[in-house]
């Protein structure tokens, strides 16, 4: 299941990458709000591989730590979207801790 979600995540990123994440969002490519928030917020600093690389094997608690770390560094996201984006990362990438 997670493999399937990751594949969707990457293809979503590739599509967003053609148009830039921001324009993709504004043009209504909105299959998954969480995925798009993550793409939008994270790729301003680093390649998407840094998130999607599944061998990292982070737990839910570790993903939460990383997520807040990145937002505190300025990953652009609004307060009302914090929970959605964080939960998306945990649901998609976290391993059982």
């Amino acid at each position, binding site marked *: 299941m997670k493999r399937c979600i990751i594949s969707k995540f990457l293809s979503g990123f590739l599509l967003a990458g053609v148009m830039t994440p921001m324009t993709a*969002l504004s043009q209504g490519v909105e299959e998954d709000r969480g995925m798009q928030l993550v793409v939008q917020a994270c790729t301003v600093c680093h390649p998407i591989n840094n998130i999607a690389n599944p061998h990292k094997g982070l737990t839910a608690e570790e993903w939460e730590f990383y997520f807040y*770390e990145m937002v505190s560094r300025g990953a652009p996201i609004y307060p009302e979207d914090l929970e959605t984006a964080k939960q998306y990362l945990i649901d998609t990438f976290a391993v059982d801790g």
Partner: protein
Amino acid sequence: MRNLVKDIINTNISRRGFLSGMAVASYSASAAKSALAAVEPFIPGGELSEGWTRSVSGTGADLLLAQIKETGAKYMFVANGSGLGPLCSAMVRDPGLQFIQATHEGQAVAIADGYAKITGKPSFGMYSRVGLPHSCSNMYNSMKDRTPLVMMSDHAPSSTRGTDGHEDIDNWEEAVRFYTKWTWTAGRSNRLAEWVRRAYKVAGVMPGGPTHLRIPRELMNEQVTAPVYTGQALNIPMELRPNTQEVERVAKILLASESPMMVVGPEVSQCGARAAVQELAELLAIPVIQFRSFYCDFPNSHDLWVGDNRLIPAWVNAYGKPVDCWFNIGARTIRRPYSEGVPMIQASVDGDTIGRNIPLAGALVGDLNEVAKDLIAAIKSMASPEQLRQRTVERRGKCAAHTQKLLAARMEAGRMSSGSPVPWQRMIYELRQQLEPNAVVVEETGTQYRALGMLPFGDNAMEKIGRTEGRALGWGVGASAGVKLALPDRQVISLQGDGGFLFGQTDSLWTHSRYNIPVMTVVFNNRSYEETRWEMLGRRGEVTDAGEAGRDYVSYLGDPDVDFTALASAYNIPGAVVNNTEELSSAIRRGLRTLADGRPFMLDVRTRRLGIGAELGWYPGDFSVADLRERKV
């Protein structure tokens, strides 16, 4: 312009050549004449008004000291060396200048740099002639930041020059040519004041930078009677105004722009132009991006503050319009356009670098305070308040909503972070709760500096100094001492990574302790050079060979596991170790109480490693010199 000033006071060019050079560098004729009038007293044979000099009789060192004091300097940043002997004797005869001593030359420069970054005036320093190489790392930092310093040393006796003698090489000046605006070896004792004045002048003219003066020992001991230049002769008005026609042209471009973006850099602060630049941004509701800077050049909790350049797309998305005009004001080192085909305007005090990397649609050379004020006046002459309101009301509202939401999310992330080891962002969040509203933060960290966005910086808020543009580690601890010296009535904290702290600057704790410098040094101790590890084990999302093998050759710092509070204790500085977020608040409170009592403090915060290789325990620690021995000696 700095080269022109250097050339004219070294008589390499004539006055006419100076004016021509200023015109070529895009300065207006009136600005060029104003600059010439300012440097006139420093040109050998130039006109000096009556009363601009006074005669001093004594040793060469007496003359040197008198000239330094005439600049208004209160402090001199020194490291030990027998070459300071004549100056020490002069201090007995003419007390009043306070020595601030470092235990080595590099830290003396760092302290001087921190002091100069706050005061905006050249700092004076002196150390042993053989200390020059040691000082170079921070001289380089100062040069990259254009920080005005006059660093002096003794020099081998004239009788032994060119003999490859004791403690000497042939061409000391060459060694620092690229780290200084001007370097000189004095040749006559009765001209020492003149050379000090010249070094001071060259260092202080915007864009500033370090100068280096070497003085053979016998000159400092010789008896002389010579002029010292008084305060009035050292007053250098350099508020140069930009070209009027270019101001009007740029004002029209900005007024016509549907989606402008201002990029601010350190020259804004160095010119004392923050208030004027803020007024200009507010007048047109121009969103502001902070380029890399060792200051915060625009208030980072302002409604128009978008953040750094990574956050441009987020603003474009929120506003719904791409940027159609970039206005770089004071960012010297932007390498390439932010977007192809979109005009860029640059305003800089540095004629040498303006337009250097990017073709410009508008170029304003001059003091940035004058540039901003002239632009404001030009814009107001072209549009009524109502017209300006109509043009900006939508952007002003959208930008405020966007930036305040980003700030709120950032603060929430800090508040929600907890655990052990301590998350970096929680530490910053806690500091925000406890620091005074006008505290000063001296930082020498990696990309974690971005979390400092939780702290409010600005003219009526906290102040940020660092990290240096040069990025040579080993600056921050010393610099924080200089900052506190310049601002004794404001809280000062120094933020360090454990790796940076160990880069030859723990020695500055000696200075903190000796002079009761109440600075709290916070070491974010994750036992790793984190960002070099990221680069070595992973590169742009791809894992390197070292990463695949799990080999962290040079970034792991956990063995030996340095006890930084024990290190501070060796300098009689109290401290605390923080292992988890529950301990944070009380430890910070204790630290701030210690500062209030007049002593420095060390906070060793055990922080979490993150990113690739964070979990690695491997390092090349299985090599032991002791095991090479065949005899146990």
